[in-house]
C-alpha cells in the first residue's frame, strides 16, 4: 500500500511533466496547418494564372555559335561612342577601356562591365580596318584592334587606318563592316559597302530620309549581302517572352499601345562633350558634312555640330532615329505590326534652346487600320518621370519599364483588366485581382548590377544594356554582332535583317516627315511611296 501510494503521485507527476514539456507542440501543429493552407492556396493561384500564361517557362538557351567555322575580318567606319561599344561586342576594347573597367570592378564589385566583357564568346574575327574622320577616335580604334585583354585568343596585329571609307571598302580581305557614323552617312556607306561585296552591320536609325531607305533596301536585295540593323533589343529575352504571351491571346484584342521616352540630362539630350583635341587639323570637317543638305565652314559652330550631331536634321533625325526607332522596333519584334498606314507627329524645342533644330519634346501617332490599332509614342528630354511602355488589351495590359517595378533589365508585368471578358469568371471568384499583376517577368532578379547614371538606367530599363542567357548576364550588343557574324557564316538572315530594317526606316521617315511638314503622312505599300 505504502509503495502504491508512493507510486501514484509519481506517475501523475510524470504525466504532468510530460504535458508541460509538450504544451507548445499543438501551437506548432496550428502553425503547420496554416502553412499547409497557405501553400495550397499559392499553388491554386499559380495554377490558375501561370499555366494559362506561360506554356514555356524556360529561358532561351545559349545558341551554339558558328564562330569556329570561318575567321572573319571586320572593318569599323565611325569609331565614336557607339562604334566602340559595337566593336567591343565583337571582342575588341581599347586598353584604356579594359584598364578602367577592371579598376571599376575592383573598386565596386557590383560593376560587372569587365567580367561581362571577358566572359563574352570569342567570335573568331579580327578588326583589320578603322575609319574615322576624327584622329583621336581613329587612334582609339587601332588601339582596340591590338589590345590583348580580350575574350579568347590574342589579337593578330594592329588594324590599318583609312581616311576615307571607300579605301577601307576597297580591301579584299575585309568580309564585313560595322557602320556607326552619324545617320547622314548610313545609306551611302551601306550601299557602297554592299556593292563592294561587304556584309553590313549598320547602327540605327537605318537612314535619315525615306528615299535613302528605298535605296538601301533595293541595294541590299540586289547584292544579297547580309545586313543587320543595330537594334540589339532583338536579342533581349524579355521581348521574346512578351511576344509568346501576346501570341497566346492573353491580352485580348489590342487597340492601343503607348511607348514613351523620358530623359532629363544634357547628355541624354545629346549635349555631348566637345573633345579638347577637336580642331581643323584633327577633324575632316568637309568630308563629314559632304552628304548633309546644309554646309557651314569649320569653326566653333561646326565643332558643336560634329560632336553633338544628333541635335540637327542635317546629320540625323533627333528623337526619331535615336530613341523612337528603338521602341518602335521592340514593339515590332513583339507584335510584328510593320509599317503603319498613317503617321502624324508634333512637338517642339521647348527646353534645350541651344541652337538645335530637332525637337526635345516630340510625339508620334501611328495608325494601323488593318489591325484596328493605334501606337502612340511620346518623348520628353526634360523629365525623368519614367512612364514605361504599355500594350493595352481588352483583357489585360502589359507594362514594361516605367513604374512597373520589375527590376532593371527590361522586364514586364501583365495585369488583368477589371472589365475583361476572358478573365471575367476568375475576376469574379477572386482568383485574379485586377489590382495585382497576374504575371511578372523580372529577369536576373537574383543578380545585382551596378547601373549608376540616369541614362544607363534608361537603356537598362529598356533591356538595351544587358540581357540574360541561362541566368548569365550578357551584353545584347555582343549577341547582336554574333547573330550577324553567324548569319554571314551560314548564309541565313539575322534577327534585324533588311526587311525589318526597312520597316523601321520607313516608319521613322514617316514620323519625321510629318513633323517637318505639319501634315499626316500616308504609306502606299503598292507604289512604295509616301503620300
Amino acid at each position, binding site marked *: 500500500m505504502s509503495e502504491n501510494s508512493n507510486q501514484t503521485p509519481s506517475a501523475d507527476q510524470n504525466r504532468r*511533466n*510530460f504535458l*508541460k*514539456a*509538450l*504544451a*507548445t*507542440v499543438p*501551437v*506548432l501543429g496550428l*502553425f503547420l496547418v496554416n*502553412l499547409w493552407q497557405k*501553400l495550397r492556396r499559392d499553388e491554386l493561384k499559380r495554377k490558375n494564372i501561370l499555366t494559362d500564361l506561360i506554356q514555356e517557362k524556360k529561358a532561351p538557351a545559349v545558341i551554339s555559335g558558328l564562330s569556329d567555322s570561318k575567321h572573319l575580318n571586320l572593318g569599323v567606319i565611325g569609331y565614336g561612342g557607339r562604334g566602340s561599344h559595337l566593336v567591343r561586342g565583337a571582342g575588341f576594347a581599347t586598353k584604356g577601356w579594359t584598364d578602367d573597367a577592371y579598376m571599376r570592378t575592383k573598386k*565596386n*564589385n*557590383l560593376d560587372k562591365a569587365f567580367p561581362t566583357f571577358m566572359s563574352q564568346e570569342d567570335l573568331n574575327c579580327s578588326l583589320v580596318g578603322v575609319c574615322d574622320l576624327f584622329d583621336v577616335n581613329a587612334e582609339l580604334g587601332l588601339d582596340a584592334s591590338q589590345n590583348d585583354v580580350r575574350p579568347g585568343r590574342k589579337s593578330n596585329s594592329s588594324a590599318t587606318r583609312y581616311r576615307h571609307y571607300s579605301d577601307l571598302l576597297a580591301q579584299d580581305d575585309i568580309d564585313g563592316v560595322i557602320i556607326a557614323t552619324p545617320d547622314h552617312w548610313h545609306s551611302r556607306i551601306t550601299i557602297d559597302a554592299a556593292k563592294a561585296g561587304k556584309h553590313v552591320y549598320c547602327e540605327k536609325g537605318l537612314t535619315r530620309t525615306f528615299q535613302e531607305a528605298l535605296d538601301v533596301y533595293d541595294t541590299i536585295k540586289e547584292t544579297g549581302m547580309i545586313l543587320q540593323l543595330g537594334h540589339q533589343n532583338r536579342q533581349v529575352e524579355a521581348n521574346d517572352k512578351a511576344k509568346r504571351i501576346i501570341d497566346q491571346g492573353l491580352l485580348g484584342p489590342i487597340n492601343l499601345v503607348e511607348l514613351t521616352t523620358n530623359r532629363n540630362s544634357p547628355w541624354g539630350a545629346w549635349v555631348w562633350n566637345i573633345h579638347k583635341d577637336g580642331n581643323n587639323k584633327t577633324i575632316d570637317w568637309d568630308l563629314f558634312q559632304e552628304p548633309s543638305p546644309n554646309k557651314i565652314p569649320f569653326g566653333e559652330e561646326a565643332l558643336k555640330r560634329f560632336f553633338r550631331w544628333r541635335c540637327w536634321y542635317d546629320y540625323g533625325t533627333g528623337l526619331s532615329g535615336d530613341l523612337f526607332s528603338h521602341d518602335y522596333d521592340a514593339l515590332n519584334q513583339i507584335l510584328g505590326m510593320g509599317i503603319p498606314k498613317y503617321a502624324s507627329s508634333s512637338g517642339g524645342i521647348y527646353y534645350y534652346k541651344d541652337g538645335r533644330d530637332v525637337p526635345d519634346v516630340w510625339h508620334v501617332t501611328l495608325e494601323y487600320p488593318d489591325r484596328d490599332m493605334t501606337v502612340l509614342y511620346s518623348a520628353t528630354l526634360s523629365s525623368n518621370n519614367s512612364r514605361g511602355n504599355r500594350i493595352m488589351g481588352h483583357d489585360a495590359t502589359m507594362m514594361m519599364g516605367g513604374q512597373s517595378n520589375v527590376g532593371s533589365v527590361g522586364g514586364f508585368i501583365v495585369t488583368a483588366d477589371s472589365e475583361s471578358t476572358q478573365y471575367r469568371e476568375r475576376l469574379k471568384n477572386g482568383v485574379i485581382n485586377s489590382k495585382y499583376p497576374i504575371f511578372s517577368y523580372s529577369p536576373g*532578379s*537574383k543578380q*545585382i548590377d551596378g547601373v549608376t547614371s540616369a541614362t544607363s538606367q534608361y537603356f537598362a530599363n529598356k533591356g538595351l544594356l544587358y540581357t540574360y542567357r541561362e541566368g548569365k548576364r550578357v551584353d545584347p550588343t555582343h549577341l547582336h554582332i554574333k547573330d550577324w557574324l553567324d548569319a554571314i557564316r551560314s548564309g541565313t538572315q539575322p534577327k534585324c535583317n533588311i526587311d525589318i530594317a526597312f520597316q523601321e526606316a520607313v516608319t521613322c521617315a514617316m514620323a519625321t516627315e510629318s513633323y517637318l511638314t505639319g501634315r499626316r503622312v500616308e504609306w502606299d505599300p503598292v507604289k512604295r511611296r509616301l503620300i
Partner: protein
Amino acid sequence: MAGQTHKLTSSIIVNNPQLYGLVTLRVLIGWHILYEGVSKLINPYWSSAAYLLDSKWIFSDLAKTIVSNPTLLTISDYVNMWGLTLVGLCLLLGVFSRQAALAGMVFILLYYLFAPPFLGLEYSKPGEGSYIIVNKNLIEACALFVLYYFPTSHLIGLDRILSKSETN
C-alpha cells in the same frame, strides 16, 4: 493559481501568470521567426540581396561586399533561411531555447543595425510603420534578451524533459 510559484533560475521565482506571460511571449516570437524562415525557404526567388543593397549606416559596406560576392550571398541566404527556421522552431517548442533566444537576438539585432531607422537615413522601401530610432526589430531583439535571462522552457517546453534526463 497565481499563488503557485516556479523557479526560473536559482534566484528568480515567478508566479503562474508571470510564467504564462513569458511562455506566450516566447511562443509568439518563435512563431514569427519560424515563419520568417519558412517563407524564405518556400520562395525560390527570395534573396537577401535586395535587403542588403538597401543597407545604410555602419554595415552598408559589408552588405555591399556580401551582395557582390556570389558565394557570400549564397551563404547569407542559407544562414538566414535555415537560421531563422531553426531559431523559431526552438523557441516555439522550448528546446535549447536559451541558445535560440540568444541567436534570435543576434539575427534581429543585425537586421536592425543593417537598416536602422535613424534620422537622415532614407530607404527605398517605405517601412510598414512610423519609426524613429526604435522599431519593431529593436523591440523584438530586446524581448529575446529578456527571454534569455528569464528562461521558461525547463518549465513549459521540451527542455523540461531534456533537463530532467540530464539531472537524472
